[in-house]
C-alpha cells in the first residue's frame, strides 16, 4: 500500500472541501472494498477522507419509509427491529452480506457508492425504488445505477442516507458466489401498496437490472406460479469460472421463486 494523507472531518461540508482540494482523494467508510484495492495497488489515493467522523450511522423508520444513514453497517441494518418489521426482506439481505467481519465494518453508503455488480444492496434499492440522498441532491434508484462500478455520483459527492419506501411485501434470495460469498445471482422482489411488482437482479449481469417480464407477470399475481412460463435468456449475463451465463440465467428464475417464497 502506498502512503497517503489521512483526514477525519466531522462535517459533510468539510469532507467535500477536503475532497476538492485533494489531488486524488477517496472517501473511506467501512474500508472493506477500498482497503483491499489499495493493498493490491489497484487504488493509490493521495488522500483518504475518513467519513466515520461524520457519525452518520442509524436508522429511522417512518410510516411510509425507512431512512438508513450512509454510515450504518450491514450488521446494524440486519439487527434493527424497525427494519425487520417494516421491510423484513431488506434486513434479511443485509444479514446475508459476506461474513460477520464484513457485516460489522461494511456500510450501506460504501456499498452503494461502490456499486459492485455482485453486491446485494443495489438489488434492494432498485426493486424497492429507493432514493439515494447525497450532500447535494436526492437521486432515485432508477437513475442512480449507471453500470459496472459506476453511479450517478459526482467525484466529490457524498451519500448521506438511503430512503426506502415501505412496500406491501418484499423478499430477497441470493445464490452466493462459492468463493467470495458475493451474489452470483441475487433477486429482490417487491409488491408495492398498489399491487405493482418490481424485480431487480444483481450478480448476474454487468450491473443491477430489472427483470421486466417477471414484473409484468408478478403484477398480475405475486406468486411463484406466475413465473412458470418465463425463461430468462443468458445473453448479456456474466460468465466466469464459477458460473456460465446459462447457469446464471437459470438461477435468476430459481432465486426469484425463492424470493417470492420468502417475501413478507
Amino acid at each position: 500500500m502506498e502512503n497517503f494523507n489521512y483526514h477525519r472531518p466531522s462535517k459533510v461540508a468539510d469532507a467535500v472541501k477536503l475532497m476538492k482540494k485533494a489531488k486524488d482523494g477517496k472517501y473511506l467508510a467501512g474500508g472493506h472494498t477500498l482497503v483491499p484495492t489499495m493493498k493490491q495497488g489497484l487504488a493509490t489515493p493521495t488522500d483518504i477522507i475518513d467519513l466515520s467522523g461524520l457519525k452518520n450511522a442509524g436508522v429511522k423508520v417512518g410510516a411510509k419509509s425507512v431512512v438508513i444513514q450512509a454510515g450504518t453497517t450491514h450488521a446494524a441494518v440486519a439487527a434493527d427491529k424497525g427494519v425487520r418489521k417494516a421491510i423484513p426482506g431488506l434486513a434479511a439481505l443485509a444479514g446475508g452480506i459476506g461474513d460477520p467481519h464484513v457485516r460489522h465494518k461494511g456500510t450501506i453508503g460504501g456499498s452503494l457508492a461502490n456499486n459492485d455488480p455482485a453486491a446485494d444492496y443495489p438489488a434492494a434499492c432498485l426493486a424497492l425504488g429507493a432514493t439515494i440522498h447525497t450532500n447535494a441532491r436526492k437521486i432515485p434508484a432508477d437513475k442512480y445505477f449507471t453500470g459496472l462500478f459506476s453511479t450517478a455520483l459526482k467525484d466529490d459527492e457524498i451519500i448521506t442516507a438511503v430512503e426506502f419506501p415501505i412496500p406491501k411485501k418484499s423478499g430477497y434470495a441470493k445464490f452466493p458466489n462459492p468463493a467470495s460469498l458475493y451474489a452470483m445471482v441475487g433477486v429482490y422482489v417487491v409488491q408495492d401498496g398498489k399491487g405493482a411488482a418490481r424485480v431487480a437482479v444483481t450478480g448476474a449481469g454487468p450491473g443491477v437490472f430489472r427483470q421486466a417480464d417477471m414484473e409484468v407477470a408478478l403484477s398480475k399475481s405475486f406468486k411463484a406460479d406466475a413465473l412458470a412460463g418465463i425463461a430468462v435468456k443468458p445473453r448479456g449475463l456474466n460468465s466466469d469460472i464459477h458460473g456460465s451465463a446459462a447457469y446464471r440465467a437459470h438461477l435468476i428464475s430459481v432465486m426469484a421463486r425463492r424470493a417470492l417464497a420468502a417475501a413478507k
Partner: protein
Amino acid sequence: MTGTGVGASVKRKEDQRFITGKGQYTDDINLKDQTYAYFVRSPHAHATIKSINTKKAAAMPGVLGVFTGEHVKEDKIGGLICGWAITSKDGSGMKAGPHPILADGKVRYVGDHVAVVVAETKEQAKAAAALVDVKYAPLAHNVDAAKAMSTKAQVHDVAADNRVYNWSIGDEGNTAAAFKNAAHVTKLDIVNNRLIPNAMEPRAAIGSYDTGMEAYTLYTTSQNPHVARLVISAFHGLCPEHKLRVIAPDVGGGFGSKIFIYAEEVVCVWVSKRVGGRPVKWTAERTESFLADAHGRDHVTKAELATDSSGRITGLRVHTTASMGAYLSTFSSCVPTYLYATLLSGQYNIPNIYAEVDAVYTNTAPVDAYRGAGRPEATYVVERLVETAARELKMDPAEFRRKNFVTQFPHQTPVIMCYDAGDYDASLVKAQEMADVKGFAARKAASAKNGKLRGLGYSAYIEACGIAPSAAIGSLGAGVGLWESAEVRVNPVGSVEILTGSHSHGQGHETTFAQLVSDRLGVDFNNVSVVHGDTDKVQFGMGTYGSRSGAVGMHAISKALDKIEAKAKKVAAAVMEASTDDVEFKNGTFTVKGTDKKMAFGEVALAAYVAHKFNSAEIEPGLKESAFHDPANFVFPAGVHICEVEIDPDTGVTEIANYTCVDDFGNLINPMIVEGQVQGGIVQGIGQALAEGCVYDESSGQLLTGSYMDYRMPRAADVPSFNLGFTCTPCPTNPMGMKGCGEAGAIGSPPAVINAVTDALGIREIAMPATPQVVWNAVQGLKKAAE
C-alpha cells in the same frame, strides 16, 4: 493409562500459546538491523528475459541492493534441486531442468522469481521492486498437463517433449493378459484436480550473515529445518553445514508445502552477506502464496479394472500424466511414482497391476507433495474404479469390496508394498453401522419428496506412511534416508527435555511426545518439554511429513527412553546396593526385587548427576541418551469413509448430509488429537471434491484463482458434525503399535464424496471439484437424456 499418559485425550499444551497470540512464527521475529526483501516476479507464463534494468530501483530511497540472476552466477550459488531421482522405463534418467534461485534468461510460470530488492523497509523494497525494468519476449506457453507432450511450448531444453520421465511399475504382460481374460472391464477417465495448499501462515524467511563468526543463520517456515540446512550447504554451496544454522520456530501449517527448499529462503540467507551481514527478511503476501507455493495433485489418468465372472478383481491398469509445473520441486518426482502407484492395490487382492506415469513440465507453479502426496490420487483412482465396477456388475459396492479385501497378513502387493496388519472388514462393518446404511433408502425417499437427490458413497482407503525404510527408498532413487533422531535429556531434578528431529507445524508434538515420556518414565506430563526446529539444538532430523512423526519420530524417542531406563537402572542399582538385574522400574519408581527398597525416578536422576554413589569408571555420570531410528517398513493405516450427500437439482448445490469415517490407526496416543487430524483431513478432502480447484487461464497462462475471491476453500458451515470411529490392529513394526493419522482424512474422503454425488445423480463420472455449476450441468445432461 494415566490422565496424561498414552491413550489419554490430553488438551494440547501448545494451544494456550497459539490461541493467545503468543506463538513465535518466523514473521514475529525481528532481528537487529533487519532489512526487507521483495521479489520481482514474472507476469508471463513463459518468456525470454531480454534485459533487466535495475538502475531506477537501486536509486530509490532505502534500497540496499537489487539482485538478479547475474549476481547468483557471480557468487556461484547453485540452483534448487529435486532430491529423488526417478529412472524411466527405458533406463534413462529424469530430465531435470535448471532451477536457479533467480531467473537465468528465462521465466517459466507466472510468479517465477526474477529479481530481489533489499531495502530498509518492506514498503521501500516493494516500491523499488515496481521500478525494476524487465524486458520480456513472451514465448508459447502451456498450462495443461494433458497437452504437455503435444504442445509447441517447450519448458526446458533438456526435455524436448516436456517429459520429465516415463516410469512404470508392475508387470505389463501379465496385466495385459488379465484384461484379455476378464469377464468385465471398467474404464474411467480421471482428473485429480490441482490444489493450492493455503497454509494459514504464509511462507517467510530471515537470512542473516554474521561477519564476525563468518556463519549464516536462516529462520524459515520449514517442516524439516535440517534438510534445508543440508540442501542449502551441499547444493547451493553457500557454506559448509556447520556454518549454517537453520531455525524453524512455530510453523503455522504446511500440508507439505513447507517441506521444500524454496528460492526465497535461499535468496534471503545469500543476500544477507551482500548487504554487509544485515538480516534480510521476507514474508510472502497471500498473493505470493497462491502464485509461488508448490501446488498439489494435478493428475490426468486413464484407469481400468478387470474382473472375473464371480466379481473378483483380476487386474488394474493405469496411465497417469502428472504435472510437475515449470520446475522440479524438492520431492516432486517421487509423488506421482513411489508415493502413488505403490498404493494402487488399495485394500484389495489384485494379482496384476501395471501403472505407467508420464511426469510433464507445464508453465505453472511447481507441483509437489500436498497432504497425502500421491496416496489421495491413488485412492481416488482405486475407489472410483471399484465403486463404478460394483455398480456396473450390479453388486452392492460394500459387498464387492468385501469380496476383494485382503484378509491374510502380511500381504505382498504386486506394487512393492507389503501390508503388515489390518482388518478391513471390521472397519467396513463398523462404518456401515455408524452410518446407518440400512436406513439410507428411507432417507433417500424422504429427500426425493422434497425434490432433492440423495446419494451414498464409500471409500475404503489404505495408505503407506511413516516414511520410510532408508535402504528401501534409497534403492528406489531417494537422495536421503528417512530415519528419525531423538535425544532425551533428563535434568538433575528429574524433568525431561526431548530433542526431536520431527517438527510440528500443527500436529501437537509438544503434547503427544510428552504423553509418551510421561507414560514411560512416570514423570509429570508438565515436566516434559519438547525441543525441535533448530539445527543448533537438535543434532539432526528428517522432519515432519508423510505422517511420520508418530511412527518414526516417536519410535526414535522410545528407543532413547529404553536407553535412559537401562542407564537409570544401573544408577539405581548402585545407589540401592543391588544388582542391576534385580532392579525393576514401574510407574516412575525403581524397586529392588524381594526388598522394600525403592527410589523415585527423580531421585535416580539426581543421583546420576551428583555421581557420589557409584564408580564413575563403570557408570558415566549424567542421564542423557540419544537414538536414531530407521523404520523396518512403512505403516499402513486403513479405513472406510461413508459419505451421504443431498443435492438440490435446482441449483446444483451439494450438501454433505452425513459423514462417517472409521480408521484403523493402530494404538492411539491422544484420541482427541487424532480426531482433529481426521476432521481436518476430511474437510480438505471435501474441499478437493466439491470446492477447491486451481485454474490457470489457457490463453494467458495467468492464475485465475489467485485469491480467496476465486479460490474456494471449504468452510465450517460446509461440513456436518462427523461420525468418527476407530478399529485397531496394532502395527507390528513399532513398540507403540501405532500407524499414522495426519493425512488419512484427506486421502480417504474425495472418492467417498464423488461416489456419493454420482450415486445421487445416477451417473458414472463427474469432475472434481463438483461445484454447483458442475453438478447443475450434470443435472441438465440428465434432463436432456430423459427427453
